[in-house]
């Protein structure tokens, strides 16, 4: 159970970054950390003690001990979606810097143009 709690601690570090930090880029890094922790938690839930990779080859006998393949299928697409959202947020951050010349969220207040 201690590995699950450590994954939750990683999630909470990211949550602290989103709540407390004032630099837009640091918020982006914290969101990326939250993403890693959730994927980690899913992959750890699916592990079976003594199991092997869920890929059949010509030599596998019937009744082999496999790891749970469903969490792996869920995380596979989640990783690529994480890259997409990180890229979108980086684009928005670049645009914010070009307009307001700072990354500080307390100075980016007025909605102009």
């Amino acid at each position, binding site marked *: 159970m201690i590995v699950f709690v450590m994954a939750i601690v990683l999630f909470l570090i990211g949550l602290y970054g989103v709540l407390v930090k004032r630099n837009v880029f640091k918020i982006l890094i914290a969101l990326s950390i939250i993403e890693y922790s959730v994927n980690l938690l899913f992959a750890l839930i699916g592990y079976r003690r003594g199991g092997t*990779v869920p*890929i*059949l*080859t*010509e030599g596998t006998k019937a009744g082999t001990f496999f790891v749970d393949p469903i969490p792996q299928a869920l995380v*596979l*697409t989640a*990783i*690529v979606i994480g*890259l*997409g959202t990180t*890229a979108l947020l*980086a*684009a928005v951050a*670049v645009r914010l810097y070009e307009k307001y010349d700072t990354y500080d969220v307390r100075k980016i207040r007025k909605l102009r143009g």
Partner: protein
Amino acid sequence: MKGMTLIVKCISQLMAPSIFLLGVYVVLHGHLTPGGGFAGGVLIAGSFVLLILAFGSDEVRSQILNWNATAFESVGLFVFWFLAFWGLIRGTYYFTNVITKVNPGLPYHLFSAGIIPLCNLAIGIEVAAALFSIFICLAILKVGDRI
């Protein structure tokens, strides 16, 4: 963004086709070995990103803006949707594996598993074009360009 030294340019010219070939292999053998459409697509995009980083964005600007990279992404998604729709055309439910019902093929060979390799190919093209478009936007685009 300026390019790098001559050694880096030569080595990346030699390595980029190998990375591209590895990406295509991972996509096509997605139903036999670990990998699949997503991993292979990101590898293919990685080989193009390597070339751009080594040669600098100023040199490759004029050629890359003619490629129309976002069109490939739309084509990939449309092919994937059409493969899902094929089940409805055939009379069964959405997303049926129509090829396996007609002609199963031998297991553990390359031409098996029905619709799965075709889906992997469509997803590979879509993911590669998507990530390459993102990198073009961040590194190459200047005022007045069309992508």
